[in-house]
């Protein structure tokens, strides 16, 4: 079920980016499985009531990977899938960084390091009100260079925000080079543990592993949860995987055809 949603996310994302001649397809493919499992199996949300008070909140902090989330929201019925065809048009609500004017999107991002503090604020407010809604934030690895994240990590651990789960899309590629060659994050899980979070590391493309980890939060009932998801940038398209240039490039017609063929369903799937 979530495998099919992930496949549709990839197909939509590729088509949207190719049509719009937009960037960041590698980042979107990297999180397609995470987003599919979240929307397919984890998040308590209602497409007919995007503002339902008891919903779980999902924050995409790496807003440049928005096509994956737009595709998931459309596939889940938050808005018509035809909207996806407008991606990249000047009057489209689907901006090229995730936009809160789109039904189902909680928060606009685009500048990195904003999602986790905002998510912590939501978690704190829900906690203060005694609400059981959970907050999930999806961050990139390169984004962790921003100090604001570490401020939020301190705060969330100090206040025991166990209704907050952060997921790191750890594909080890950032804007110009690998994470290791830019600002080394290793040992990343140890850093989060030292900051007082409950930490798990998984294969971020394994739906079973994602489902098992995310359906069990909060893992110890008292700490915020950090899921380090090891991923491959450009996952699912052979010639995009682990290639920094696909942070920027949009596939041409032939490349799109090949990329869609690799999804095992074709463009009309």
């Amino acid at each position, binding site marked *: 079920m979530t495998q099919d949603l992930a496949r549709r996310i990839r197909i939509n994302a590729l088509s949207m980016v190719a049509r719009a001649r937009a960037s960041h397809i590698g980042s979107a493919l990297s999180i397609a499985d995470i987003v599919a499992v979240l929307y397919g199996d984890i998040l308590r949300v209602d497409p007919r009531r995007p503002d339902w008070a008891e919903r779980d909140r999902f924050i995409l902090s790496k807003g440049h990977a928005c096509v994956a989330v737009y595709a998931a929201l459309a596939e889940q019925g938050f808005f018509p899938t035809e909207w996806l065809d407008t991606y990249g048009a000047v009057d489209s609500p689907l901006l090229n960084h995730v936009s809160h004017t789109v039904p189902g999107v*909680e*928060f606009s*991002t685009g500048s990195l390091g*904003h999602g986790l*503090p905002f998510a912590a*604020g939501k978690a704190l*407010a829900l906690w203060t009100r005694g609400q059981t809604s959970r907050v999930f934030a999806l961050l990139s690895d390169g984004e962790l260079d921003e100090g604001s994240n570490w*401020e939020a990590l*301190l*705060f969330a651990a100090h206040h025991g925000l166990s209704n907050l789960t952060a997921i790191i899309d750890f594909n080890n590629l950032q804007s110009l080079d690998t994470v290791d060659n830019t600002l080394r994050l290793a040992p990343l899980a140890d850093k989060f543990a030292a900051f007082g979070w409950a930490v798990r590391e998984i294969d971020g493309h394994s739906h079973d592993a994602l489902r098992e980890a995310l359906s069990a939060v909060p893992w110890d009932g008292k700490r915020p949860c950090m899921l380090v998801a090891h991923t491959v940038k450009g996952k699912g398209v052979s010639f995009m995987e682990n290639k920094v240039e696909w942070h920027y490039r949009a596939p041409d017609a032939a490349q799109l055809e090949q990329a869609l063929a690799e999804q095992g369903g074709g463009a009309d799937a």
Partner: protein
Amino acid sequence: MRDAFIDELCRQAEQRSNVILIVGDLGYSVVEPFAARFPDRFFNAGVAEQNMLGLAAGMASEGCHVFAYSIANFPTFRCAEQFRNDVDYHQLAVTVVAVGGGLAYGNLGYSHHAVQDFGLMRLFPQTLIAAPGDPLEARACLRYLLDHPQPSYFRLGKAGEVAVHPEVPSVAPGQWLQVVAERGAASARLSTGTMLHRTLASHRERDTPLPEDLFTMPLWGAGCKDSQAAQLARYGCVETWEDHYLDGGFGSWLREAAALSGSPTRIRSRFLRPDQTLGHTA
């Protein structure tokens, strides 16, 4: 004025359960009454202003009205993008409260001189600036913001400012609040923030015999320039007073409003010069 602000915030928080106070590890001997009365609505974010503003935005997105309190430039310049993107763009009820507007913390040095904060905060199109001139204006501004929740910047002086108004005045964005009315006045002085006391003293000591009216404007911002033309039209000359640089300041804001409306009123400005804050003279 700090004490009036906290006292009013406590009073309002009794009635409004969504009022939250977050401090950036500052507010010693000021915020304790709130913290004691509303311990589950008071948070110290630590020395971490970016997170403080992100937290505030997140809480506001869940229906809270969050007051984020710190000193001088810390809750503004240090986290300007958090205010721009998270608060102003999303139109959230976050009120950044900065103590030490202008040179209130003069001896603490340039780091503590809030002399460019209007210039920054008035750039945000959905943000209202509150710069009260006395403790009663502070109460009035706070009540206005709670009744009209929106992105806002609350600039306080330090402490010890005496009351000028006889009672809590009625305030509205862009509205000039009359302090002195003289018969036949063709010119006016208009201050924002704690410069009210300076304009009042100057007014009393002035040697010119010409009648002059005195006003304060505690609520203003990018969204209320349109309301200035009619008020300017009453005078041939208006002099603005502020404890802020000319560039980006209150006087410049009024000049922009006047220019946009084609107002013929002559505007003069009193302001702080950079050499008054940089610790050296050119």
